């Protein structure tokens, strides 16, 4: 296999890249004479791959590390929602309603209602925990799907060029010219507010309603990534190492996957974080307008709109779910910023 020679400014590695630039260090690259001198002087020289440099740069970005910690925390909360939530998502307890004023409990330490309760006496902390679970699940689904589609389309368009490229790019043009939110909303109305039974030949399966929202979001969000990947492929396919791979008889698929794609990992990973943050915010917005995730599924946006309908006097119903959404989106954005610094050393640090 012809390994691409390390070129300035492009993060590349022959090991499978892990998200976040965390991957096992490679074997020692050929050492320069400086290292030999250092060795003679008794200084131990550690071989570092591109990836361990990326990791060091990432962990130097304090906000990015903080973002990672916050995101991991929320991910754990989402995964262990059942174990963590002090009450059930729909557990009604009318004892939580003040008999004289008829109002729900404000945040209190008593009974662990630290986020208060709603007008049916349901514990708001538990409702939010289940909401985080749905939101993160949808965001992850969108990120994976949109990244996969965007990378595939961009790679094919950029590598083959010509008519294929033209057709695919006109299609991305079409999606970019549409008023995004309007298309999202009409599509959400079209797909309905229930789970769908889908039969594909012998296969029959259920698409849960949140997944449908995820599908719509992914359909709109892959486009920009496809254009970025296409641009990278257009320039990389002219490089000598691709020519060398062709001369060695590598198939198109092998050249795309093993030779060009690893050089695009930096921008793709950075853009995936942007997609994830966007997905969380758009999903919350859709749920807020009423065309997003439907009950009985929990959703942070839905919690906010329900809280709003209580007439603004129960502030905690509006404040806390929004605060959580902001925190998650902020954490993801900072991680993205750190990844950009770590994976794309050519770009001037514009932090």
């Amino acid at each position: 296999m012809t390994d691409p020679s390390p070129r300035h400014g492009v993060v590349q590695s022959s090991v499978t890249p892990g998200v976040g630039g965390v991957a096992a260090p490679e074997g020692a690259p050929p050492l320069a004479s400086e290292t030999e001198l250092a060795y003679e002087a008794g200084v131990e020289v550690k071989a570092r791959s591109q990836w361990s440099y990326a990791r060091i740069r990432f962990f130097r970005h304090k906000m990015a590390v903080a973002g990672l910690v916050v995101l991991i925390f929320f991910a754990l909360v989402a995964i262990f929602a059942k174990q963590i939530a002090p009450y059930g998502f729909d557990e009604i307890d009318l004892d939580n309603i003040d008999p004289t004023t008829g109002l729900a409990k404000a945040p209190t330490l008593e009974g662990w209602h630290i986020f208060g309760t709603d007008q049916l006496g349901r514990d708001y902390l538990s409702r939010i925990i289940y909401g985080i679970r749905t939101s993160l699940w949808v965001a992850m689904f969108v990120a994976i799907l949109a990244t996969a589609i965007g990378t595939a389309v961009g790679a094919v368009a950029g590598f083959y060029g010509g008519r294929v490229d033209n057709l695919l790019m006109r299609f991305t043009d079409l999606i970019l010219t549409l008023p995004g939110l309007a298309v999202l909303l009409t599509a959400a109305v079209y797909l309905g507010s229930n789970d769908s039974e889908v039969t594909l030949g012998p296969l029959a399966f259920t698409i849960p309603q949140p997944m449908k929202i995820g599908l719509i979001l992914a359909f709109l969000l892959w486009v920009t990534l496809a254009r970025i990947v296409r641009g990278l492929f257009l320039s990389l396919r002219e490089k000598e190492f691709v020519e060398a791979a062709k001369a060695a008889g590598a198939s198109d698929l092998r050249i795309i996957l093993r030779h060009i794609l690893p050089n695009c990992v930096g921008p793709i990973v950075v853009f995936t974080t942007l997609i994830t943050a966007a997905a969380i915010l758009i999903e919350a917005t859709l749920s807020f307008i009423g065309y997003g995730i439907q009950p009985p599924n929990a959703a942070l946006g839905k919690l906010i709109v329900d809280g709003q309908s209580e007439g603004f006097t129960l502030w905690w119903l509006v404040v806390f779910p929004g605060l959580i959404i902001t925190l998650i989106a902020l954490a993801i954005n900072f991680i993205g910023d750190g990844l950009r610094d770590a994976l794309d050393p050519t770009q001037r640090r514009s932090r």
Partner: protein
Amino acid sequence: MFQFVIRRLLYSIVVLFAASVLVFTFVSKTGDPLAPLVLNPRISQQTIDNVVARKHLDDPIPVRYWYWLKDATTNQFGTTLLGDEPILPDLWRVMKNTMQLVIIAELLAITLAVFIGVYSALRQYSAFDYTATTFSFLGLAMPVFWFALMLQVSVVYVYQWTGNNIFPIASLSSVDPGSGISFWIDRAHHLVLPVIVLMVASIAAYTRFMRASMLEVVNSDYVRTARAKGLSEQKVTMKHAFRNALIPMVTLVALSFGAILGGAVITETVFSLDGMGLYFITALGQNDPYPIMAWLMITATMIIVFNLIADVAYGYLDPRVRYD
């Protein structure tokens, strides 16, 4: 250049056609717009049949699309499904309202963002820069509707504590706004909160962009040359750096302005402002394809026109750009 514009416009017609087919099918296939009529016992079957006959609801969707296309091109987008009211006058009214909101918010946002972005870039890593960066990250991470609701909640709480209603939290005018100057004062009072909401979202994005663009220019070779030949610092930043850093900003502003003219859907919904965005949401709730289609055509045209303006302006401002 001329050829470029013509080709883009021809392509836009294809885009508009594809978009209209897509959305018409979506909206027509969902829900039953006649449901409120059927449920109402005071409306006779005859009335319902009339609506069905007038809008050809019994025909297959492609045929109905054809009727819509004829209405849209020869009859000013036709009429609404249930009330048979002309669509265009309503659309003009909401468009005027949206324009007021959007133009004020965008102008303020651009002015502030350019100032903050440039200053941040010139004093990179200063306290000002860090503060600005933190706030723009916050602005980008906050859901717009939540920020709007928080403002409303604060206004309500201020009212409960002090008895003062500092800002109206819904609609564009008071019940009896008066006329002349007092009408416009009343309107401005109503627009304060929505403008703040729209501004915060835009400022965050524009500031980040302006800062990055300015940083790139400040560190470029020709700015170093300008310094090296002994120009004053003010001349270097204002004449050489700033003017070039604005070029990408023009593109960004044109692009987002085109998109935002379709109505600040979220802001208008939260504050119940009678604008394009709320018009769309209302029509969507009624399953009425005709206002939605009219809205979509106007909005998509705006986006296309402003995209074109952005490209042409870029080519004009930056002579290195070539159209192929």
